[in-house]
């Protein structure tokens, strides 16, 4: 499209103009580059240096890559890693699909009570973690409402130990994250859908496309940049999962819901602090996220 403009102007101007625009483009991003370098990359380099040291509190000694070797013989770390990956594989896809469904349903101009539904589904994201941890533990207790409800429906015969059984505790955590973050992700889709040209749907309807076809052949491709964004952000969020686990199960029973971030926290603050080893564990998350994000970018086929 820029060609049509080029032909109308003279030959030398475009190159100069493009250079100028390129220069202005740098100005647009300059502040961010400075800020992120100062507040993130500089501390990240420091953290990397820290990951080569070990010792308690302020008594740190350089140990080279010993911390990285130690990781592979650390059963707590292995448990935390497996749990985290498990949460990621199950929870992120479920949540993304749910959020997409909600946003498409709520984007229907003829639907009534949209404002109420939107607000209600978004509310968990703003509900204070402290409150929702207390109530989740209450709801999912042995004699809690969830068990009562399931027993009354004859779906189960004896109460499920949602919080004290290693398997069900993981399920509870997954339910809790999904509950809290689905509405949050819905916001991104809803806002993106407003920028979608509605005439495309009308054209599709005239061509006889069903709602499902419209969803898969119009909505999903159009929302692709945002779906990519949310899945990467959710991946990062889940790999750094801390709040829910800390507040609902504290990693228990017996480390069975422990996550990497929770382990970092424990190494830094709960146990006698070993900031060097904690930094090492953080770098493992970094490496994992980089790999996963790279895959997601490739799968999504982020076109040039």
């Amino acid at each position, binding site marked *: 499209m820029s060609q049509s*403009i080029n032909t109308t102007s003279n030959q030398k101007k475009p190159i100069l103009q493009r250079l100028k*625009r390129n220069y*202005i*483009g*740098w*100005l*647009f*991003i300059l*502040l*961010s*580059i400075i*800020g*992120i370098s*100062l*507040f*993130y*990359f500089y*501390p*990240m380099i*420091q953290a990397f240096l*820290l990951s080569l040291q070990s010792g308690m509190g302020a008594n740190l000694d350089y140990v080279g890559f010993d911390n990285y070797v130690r990781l592979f013989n650390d059963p707590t770390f292995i448990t935390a890693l497996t749990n985290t990956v498990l949460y990621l594989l199950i929870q992120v896809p479920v949540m993304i699909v749910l959020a997409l469904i*909600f946003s498409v*349903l709520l984007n*229907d*101009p003829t639907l009534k009570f*949209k404002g*109420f*539904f939107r*607000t*209600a589904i*978004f*509310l*968990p994201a*703003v509900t*204070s*973690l*402290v*409150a*929702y941890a207390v*109530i989740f533990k209450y709801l999912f207790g042995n004699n809690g409402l969830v068990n009562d409800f399931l027993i009354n429906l004859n779906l189960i015969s004896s109460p499920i130990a949602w919080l004290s059984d290693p398997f069900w505790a993981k399920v509870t955590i997954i339910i809790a994250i999904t509950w809290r973050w689905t*509405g*949050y992700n819905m916001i991104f889709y*809803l*806002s993106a*859908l*407003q*920028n979608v040209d509605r005439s495309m749907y009308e054209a599709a309807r005239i061509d006889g496309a069903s709602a499902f076809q419209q969803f898969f052949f119009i909505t999903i491709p159009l929302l692709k940049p945002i779906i990519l*964004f949310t899945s990467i*952000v959710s991946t*990062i969020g889940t790999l*750094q999962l801390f709040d829910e686990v800390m507040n609902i199960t504290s990693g228990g029973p017996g480390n069975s819901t422990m996550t990497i971030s929770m382990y*970092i926290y424990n190494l*830094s603050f709960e146990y006698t602090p070993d*900031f060097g080893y904690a930094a090492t564990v953080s*770098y493992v*998350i*970094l490496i994992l*996220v*980089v790999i996963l*994000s790279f895959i997601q970018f490739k799968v999504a086929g982020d076109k040039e």
Partner: protein
Amino acid sequence: MKKIKRVFTYIFLSIASLVSIFPFLWMLISMTNKSVDVTAGRLLPGGHLIENINKLIEQTQIGIALWNSFIIAIITTILTLLIGSLAGYGFEIYRSKGKDMIFSILILSMMIPFAAIMIPLYRLFGRISADAPFIGLDTLAAAFLPTIITAFFIFFFRQNTKMFARELVEAGRIDGLSEWGIFFRIYMPTMKTTYAAASIIAFMNSWNNYLWPLVVLQSPEKQTIPLLISNLGAGYTPDYGVIMTAIVVATLPTALVFFLMQRYFVAGMMGSVKG
């Protein structure tokens, strides 16, 4: 057939809303009960609302904490949106190989857990304190500075800019607008819903931010809301009625921001953007 589908939609959304809203309702009910009833999971409203509110006001500096959180959240939201959208726009509209590479590097900063960089960051602010005390440790500025420039919002605005009609940029250039003019006069008004979504998220992030304000703010008159709630729950005999009251007070502002911003999500309100 269409009607049945409609009914199913309503049932589905109603159940989802109920599940979502239940803990919130429970909080509202609990703020009217005394501690013993809250821990027993009482689901009926009680008569202790005034008492809980009075205790909250007497025992804590809730007013100051709300004010601090509010100031930090407003400044953070405005600066985050401005800086993030400038960069997101810059990376997408003035795309070049060099910028793409910088972009990938900046994205890296999202991927490390905050706990890992917190201590070096604290040390950095400790050093800043000596030369520039107004943004050093124990200032509100220190609490929001590291949060206003984030790869998250740059990424978010860039992805949304991909859906922005580039013809509008060319049209602006033909109209003789400067590059900055195009951003402020065309891009910003067009991307209202994106800004609305981002402001909700930015406000919420700032409002709930815990770890960094905790370590960087020291004097009680700079306390923010999450720190106050953390203190309330820390005693040997926590008063859950008061805690619930504080939590409701703390939740309302973000819920309100969402409520005000969500009108931008009404389909078709803006008309066709691309038209």
